[in-house]
């Protein structure tokens, strides 16, 4: 492949090996470690998809729960009649469509309106779904019975993670990615060099939303019983923002650095302080905000920069007789 340079080929190789190794996990453990890994991979995909849009644009989207819930509901409604892979496609289309409508309506506004509107979007969709079901069907809860075990969900999520990373990488080297970089630098300049900034943002929002919808769809079989409050749980939106920002949104693998420690931290807190979860999480959270202002990624880059400088200094000193 001529369109990959040496370095890229090496990274791709490492990534492929890493994915391969991680994919072997269900063969080692089918219990708790698999469960927490499903959660980790799920949030990795959610946060990375979120970052695809929010990283370059700096718009904070709290609509994750809405897309996720739409994905979950797509599967819950269709599982008995439609083949699962097709449901994943429908989930992607449905949440992408929602992202498109919301994006067109709100992305020309400034950031804060977008935050509030997306915050309410999950509630809105949840209420509309509830209302439709109340008035046009006999029951609210839907049962999703499949033969999928945790390991199948895990593998599907891993596969999706790979697709998200590849998509992100392709976007970065495409005109769209370059356009987003310019928009992130200076939106006025972006417009004057001919970039349709609104359209670029909407496209990214659609891609991001579609991926989140697929995650919701993949996760649906994990909950045998789907109902609006669990499918459109606003906590998902918040956790995604927090983990992604914690990791760092400047690079596509930034969120990974947030999701892993955060999921483990959350889990340990639940285990060690079941009665003080909120309190301890709150403290941990404030500490993160104050101690890691640029996220783990920022801190890591600082360290790398420091080391480089240190090396240069010591090299210079070494040259002195």
């Amino acid at each position: 492949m001529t369109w990959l340079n040496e370095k890229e080929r090496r990274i791709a190789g490492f990534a492929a090996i890493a994915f391969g190794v991680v994919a072997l996990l269900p063969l080692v453990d089918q219990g708790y470690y698999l469960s927490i890994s499903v959660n980790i991979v799920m949030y990795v995909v959610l946060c990375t998809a979120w970052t695809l849009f929010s990283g370059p644009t700096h718009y904070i989207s709290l609509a994750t729960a809405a897309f996720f819930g739409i994905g979950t509901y797509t599967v819950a409604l269709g599982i008995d009649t439609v083949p699962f892979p097709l449901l994943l496609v429908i989930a992607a289309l449905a949440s992408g469509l929602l992202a498109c409508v919301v994006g067109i309506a709100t992305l020309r506004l400034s950031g804060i309106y977008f935050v509030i509107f997306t915050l309410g979007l999950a509630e809105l969709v949840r209420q509309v779904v509830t209302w439709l079901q109340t008035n046009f069907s006999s029951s609210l809860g839907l049962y999703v019975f499949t033969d999928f075990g945790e390991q199948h969900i895990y593998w599907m999520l891993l596969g999706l993670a790979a697709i998200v990373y590849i998509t992100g990488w392709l976007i970065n080297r495409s005109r769209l990615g370059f356009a987003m970089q310019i928009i992130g630098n200076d939106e006025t300049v972006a417009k004057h060099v001919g970039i349709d900034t609104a359209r670029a943002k909407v496209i990214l929002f659609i891609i991001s939303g579609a991926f989140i919808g697929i995650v919701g769809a993949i996760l649906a079989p994990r909950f045998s019983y789907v109902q609006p409050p669990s499918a459109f749980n606003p906590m998902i939106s918040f956790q995604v923002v927090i983990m992604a920002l914690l990791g760092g949104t400047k690079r596509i693998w930034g969120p990974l650095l947030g999701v892993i420690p955060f999921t483990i931290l959350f889990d340990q807190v639940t285990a060690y302080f079941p009665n003080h979860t909120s309190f301890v999480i709150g403290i941990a959270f404030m500490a993160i905000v104050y101690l890691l202002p640029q996220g783990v990624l920022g801190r890591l880059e600082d360290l790398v920069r420091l080391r480089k400088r240190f090396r240069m200094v010591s090299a210079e000193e070494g040259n002195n007789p």
Partner: protein
Amino acid sequence: MSVIISGLLLGGTYALIAVGLTMQYGVSRIMNLANGENLVFACFVAFWLFTTFAINPILGIVLIVPLAFVLNWLIYTYAMRPLVDRAKNRGQLEVDSILATFGLLFILQGIMKLTFGGGYFNYNFLAVPVTIMGSNYGLNRIVAFIAAAVIAGALYLFLNHTRYGTAIRAVAVDPVSAGLVAIDVPRASAFAFALGGALTAASGALLSTFYTFNADMGIIFTMKALIIVIMGGVGDVRGAVLAALLLGLAETAVATFIDPGLTIAATYALFMLVLLFRPQGIFGKRPS
């Protein structure tokens, strides 16, 4: 007619929820996600004062407000100031304050859970019917509505007819220029944040007389408050009150004439319309 009165009463409640946040977000630039927790916390304190010492909640406000003022002042000084100082631009501060107050939300929630547990609480105060034009309304709601009017009115007078109030409005419009005309911006911001917190707490005490609350409910209030603040125009008391009343009327009308299942949908539809046609808020000035 009863729809209008019910709607206004509900709107009054919403106004109470939102005026505090409009100060905190509008002036201090802190998008306080823990606003609802602050409110529920006050509910609990009012409940505790009422059930333990038989102090009536209206009187309880006298105790709660200064306490909340000091507490919020401390929160701003020790938790928010460092963020304001290190933020390079408004966007950065927005992100940081969202994250920090999200942590604060959990801490407050944790404290409430440790002290009161996770169960539902309510108590009876002024839950007596008052008949207006043939329909009954709870006296506690009417009291809350009157209190909302008094609070909003006092705040409006303070902001528009006192020296310090004018300074605070200046900070709301442009902190940098305000600093140039010798306004102590950090102090004004801290004051506005503390004042906002105190107002929210006062609302909590009033709301506790007719809402059933538990430690997990804060976020519901925060969401409503945010919508109202944005609809009204950030930092604009008149706008917030008007938006609150509008929302109260719209929700009641939808619940009565269309379907109670669509009230949230109505809220967002209204929100969206305001955003599309007057993105600067009801009274906000269009930036040139």
